[in-house]
């Protein structure tokens, strides 16, 4: 009856050691990324009937070698080096196999961070198809109180493509900075609950440069997108996700999204789902917006998002061009610019939804990398995912 608890045996630390002020740090993130709801209030989106098919091992694939920056490395070794928690591969819509770290049971949900942006954009695409959301309209058409903020003269398109000329920097050390207020408003850090996410967003100001020129990756834009789809539809994000995405997609497990003091979903990064369900979203995009023989989002929107839309010039002026030199960013999805036509969603700490139309492969990789951003590792991951999609 004394000695280690089951929790300590699994994770190497006690549950009580994980707090709102440290949950995203290593080693706590190996647990917290699968249990965000224990730290941040969350709304849950249920599935229809039916369950998940059992896991399938990757088998010999783990011993295959991939040429990375520092030389060849086996798939198995790289999955470990990149702090992978769960990986699922689909080929032509069929499961090829999964890999899970010992601390991630098959069927567990995992936070996808900024891939939440890509998922929210799918909702925007659906509403666009229904004629409820016009990407070329000003933000103020849907959110009148955005007047006076950076969004007062921006369009929905600018929000979707991260080309809002937003004066917002990630100042980690200043508790009074806009960034610190932002983190509190989302309830992801201690001290939240006095300013709502939507109230905070309306206080951000703009830079002198016109909107639409430069790709500026700023998460508040994607939280604003969540409010845009709510205003355009008259429904809350959780309802939209359930009705328009989760049920039509045939998702097998529940998903969840963290919410703020007003129940506003953290659409920039708060979604959790299983690797299989994330892969289902990638597969739906690969199939041009179709899942289970049913149209989820218009084909023209998918084509624009993953292949033809977006500004190469704006991308080049941004800070991520090193990752995809020929890339573009459209509707919260990354076009790699590779000959394969590969596109992806990316989240901090190593979340990837990679879709390769040429090889018909979809890979969902969920991780607990110690650093939120690791440029060098990201480049290896792109090489790895590309190679893996050709091997399987």
């Amino acid at each position, binding site marked *: *009856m004394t000695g*280690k*608890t089951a*929790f300590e045996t699994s994770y190497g630390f006690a*549950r009580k050691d994980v707090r709102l002020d440290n949950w995203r740090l290593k080693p706590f993130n190996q647990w917290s990324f699968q249990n965000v*709801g*224990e730290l941040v209030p*969350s709304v849950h989106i249920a599935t229809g009937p039916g369950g998940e098919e059992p896991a399938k091992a990757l088998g010999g694939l783990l011993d295959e070698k991939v040429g990375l920056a520092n030389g060849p490395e086996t798939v198995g070794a790289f999955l470990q080096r990149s702090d992978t928690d769960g990986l699922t591969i689909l080929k032509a819509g069929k499961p090829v196999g999964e890999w899970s770290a010992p601390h991630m049971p098959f069927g567990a949900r995992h936070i996808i961070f900024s891939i939440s942006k890509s998922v929210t954009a799918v909702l925007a695409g659906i509403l666009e198809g229904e004629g409820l959301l016009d990407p070329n309209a000003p933000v103020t058409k849907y959110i009148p109180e955005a007047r006076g903020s950076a969004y007062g003269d921006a369009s929905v398109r600018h929000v979707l493509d991260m080309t809002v000329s937003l004066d917002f920097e990630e100042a980690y050390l200043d508790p009074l900075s806009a960034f610190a207020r932002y983190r509190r408003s989302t309830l992801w850090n201690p001290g939240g*609950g006095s300013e709502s996410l939507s109230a905070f967003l309306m206080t951000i100001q703009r830079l002198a440069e016109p909107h639409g020129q430069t790709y500026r990756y700023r998460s508040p834009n994607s939280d604003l997108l969540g409010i845009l789809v709510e205003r355009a539809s008259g429904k809350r994000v959780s309802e939209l996700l359930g009705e328009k995405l989760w049920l039509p997609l045939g998702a097998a497990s529940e998903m969840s999204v963290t919410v703020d003091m007003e*129940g506003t979903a953290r659409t920039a990064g708060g979604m959790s789902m299983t690797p299989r369900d994330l892969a289902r979203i990638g597969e739906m995009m690969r199939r041009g917006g179709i899942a289970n023989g049913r149209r989820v989002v218009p084909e023209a929107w998918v084509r624009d998002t993953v292949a033809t839309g977006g500004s190469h010039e704006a991308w080049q002026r941004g800070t991520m061009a090193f990752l995809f030199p020929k890339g573009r960013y459209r509707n919260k999805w990354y076009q790699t610019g590779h000959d394969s036509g590969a596109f992806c969603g990316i989240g901090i700490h190593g979340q990837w939804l990679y879709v390769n139309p040429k090889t018909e492969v979809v890979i969902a990789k969920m991780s607990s990398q110690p650093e939120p951003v690791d440029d060098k590792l990201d480049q290896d991951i792109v090489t790895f995912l590309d190679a893996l999609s050709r091997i399987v």
Partner: protein
Amino acid sequence: MTSYRNSDPRPPIMQGSPPKLVPPKLDWDRPPWNRWAFQHIREFLPTVEVWRGSGHRHRLQRAEVDLDDLPVVGSNGAPTTLAGLLDETYCDGFLVLKDGKIAYERYFNGMDERTLHLSQSMAKSVTGSVCGILVGRGLIDPAKLVTDYLPELGETGWAGASVQQVLDMTTGVRFSEEYTDRYSEIGQVDVATGWKPIPPGSDPEFPWPSHLFELILRLKDKVRPHGEAFEYRSIETDVLAFIMERVSGKRLAQLVSEELWQKLGADESACFTVDSAGYALADGGFNATLRDYGRFGQLILDNGGGVIPAEWVGATRTGKHGPDFSPSLPDGSYRNQFWIEDSRSRSLMCRGVFGQMTHMSWEHRMVVVKLSTYPDFLNSAYSVATQKAVHAIAAALA
């Protein structure tokens, strides 16, 4: 603010973007906010999942009887119908299982088959049942002292108390269950569990506990010798849960999942609210669907169904009764975290504030679950009228 009944227009609490009516952090369990909040706990409090497992849902057969117009007595003594009483008593969900089949099932106020509803102190009976399983496995001996399992409680009021006394709420530990006093021990539980923020304007010197175990370690006083009298104090259930966690090495949510929810064939995973240290609120933070509470009640009625030891369920139905046990249960008793309705029927009840109830009648092979959101913590007239209605239903289905 005043609440609304199901027959009144429903105010748009948390509707719209942004919602104009948002439950205040200090008063989410008060009217009218509780009418929304008890169905949406996960959306404003951190929670831990009680996984239902990947097994099949145990399908409840249906043999329905329309009881809407069943004559019953209202809380003011005037005749009404069952439907009228459910409206009068702020019902969110009502289920009758007769011989294990759904005889009557109603949802109100936005609730449906998949909604997790807060059950307040019905959580105690869930926790107590899992304790019974651990006792059956020899992991806990109710005759042993609390401090045999939790030595750090040696400096608290629980020194010298037995586990059975904790199970029956007969330790002498001083703990005020004064719900509306923010500084009372139960008020401190609200802060320790993360249910409420520290009340603004409260004494800045007041040492609010940062989590539940810290509060337990501070409870040093006794008001009477252990074992002398029953006094309902929620904190005893939390002590019990810490004993269960200590002997098993598992968190309460994992225990309830493995020992009950995975075996019930539950429709949905349930959840507990958790404090800042991740401790589940064993005494009142459990949330599940109406039917899953029904499945739990049926398991008890089936004398544990091979999951909970039958001897444990038998012992739970054997308490020290009356006289004047409580206003709503004059011949009642409390044993192993369940209420016993009276000495004759020995029906068991799980009860929670704001109108939560599961009634298990061996005499009528019937389980009744009522989930509600009364405007008040306790309303004896509502609870007594509900209990009488249970008996009227039993007679109608006999």
